[in-house]
């Protein structure tokens, strides 16, 4: 609202709805309530045990003051192209539960600042299934700490997912890297794989070509981290 990107007639505070910030686990699914702050998520032992990469991602958002205030639901509904959580939701194959339906990660993120949410639809929680291995690597903007490029790399039953935030208008999966790493989970397997810079963001901080390069570097580091 401050950036004049939207001018709603009314703003409704969800903070006092009981339980909307709860973090629980049922079977193998971790449920994070929409109003859970980044500080709460990163400090949660449930989150740390379920997925350390997710806890660490939340602990790297913005700064301490921001993490005390910002929520997972707010971040996802806003779908800022440089936000961290979209990479987690897409990379970890999570589902968004709203007041009327469940939306898959693939269907949720539409475009820059655009999601599948209806204007009056409210996110209630995010469901994260169990993954075997996950790591989040981020190249933060030196001044503001947002992700110039952020890569969530996960591996479950041999299937590799690579979700990239910060590089394009909205979070996306790097299919060519996923295929190569699913068939051979080694850095050498992606030596020849490249990411086209054509649809990537370019601004005063980084050209599209530089962002494409960063993506590959971070994916390689992720493979290295998960192979250790």
């Amino acid at each position, binding site marked *: 609202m401050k950036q004049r990107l939207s001018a709603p007639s009314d*703003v409704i505070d969800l903070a006092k709805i009981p339980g909307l910030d709860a973090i629980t686990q049922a079977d193998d699914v971790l449920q994070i309530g929409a109003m859970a702050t980044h500080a709460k998520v990163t400090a949660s032992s449930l989150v740390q045990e379920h997925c350390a990469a997710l806890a660490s991602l939340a602990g790297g958002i913005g700064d301490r003051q921001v993490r005390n205030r910002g929520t997972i639901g707010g971040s996802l509904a806003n779908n800022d192209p440089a936000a961290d959580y979209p990479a987690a939701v897409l990379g970890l194959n999570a589902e968004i539960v709203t007041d009327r339906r469940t939306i898959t990660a693939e269907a949720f993120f539409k475009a820059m600042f655009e999601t599948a949410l209806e204007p009056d639809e409210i996110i209630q929680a995010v469901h994260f299934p169990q993954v075997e291995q996950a790591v989040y690597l981020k190249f933060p903007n030196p001044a503001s700490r947002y992700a110039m490029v952020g890569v969530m790399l996960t591996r479950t039953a041999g299937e590799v997912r690579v979700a990239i935030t910060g590089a394009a208008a909205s979070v996306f999966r790097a299919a060519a890297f996923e295929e190569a790493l699913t068939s051979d989970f080694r850095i050498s397997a992606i030596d020849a794989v490249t990411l086209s810079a054509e649809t990537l963001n370019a601004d005063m901080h980084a050209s599209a070509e530089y962002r494409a390069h960063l993506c590959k570097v971070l994916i390689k580091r992720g493979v290295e981290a998960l192979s250790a």
Partner: protein
Amino acid sequence: METIELKVNGRTRTVHCLPNATLVDVLRDHLHLTGTHIGCDTTQCGACTIHVDGDAVKACTVLAVRSDGAEIMTIEGLAENEASHPMQKAFNECHGLQCGFCTPGMIMSAVDLVNKGFASDPTAVREGLSGNICRCTGYQNIVAAVMQGASEMQEQSS
């Protein structure tokens, strides 16, 4: 106009404000607590850092009405009986400021870091203060001040 009640520095205050007023505007313009500064107004610089219900937050990005019923501590609430808070004293003694514009936010962040146990060493302090920007680049002395303030706060509470 909305009517909200805030407990500011131990005192209950009733404020009439517009629904779109930010907390920092209410503190400065309605309650005349001008120690909380507005630097960037976009949640980056940290000059407006205050404590809301015990957590450091940036008051430029909080709607005042959202804080109805909250307990708020600003830089003006740190000193007790005119005696500087140990963190204020440490910033003074270590020359942890140059122009002083960022200092209220730095000190409120620093006190929160110590309260939460995140001021164990200079590296943790640097990471913990990453949401507070000093344009005079006085970080060396700021970190030294926080380390000294932290040990004095711990001594005082033991």
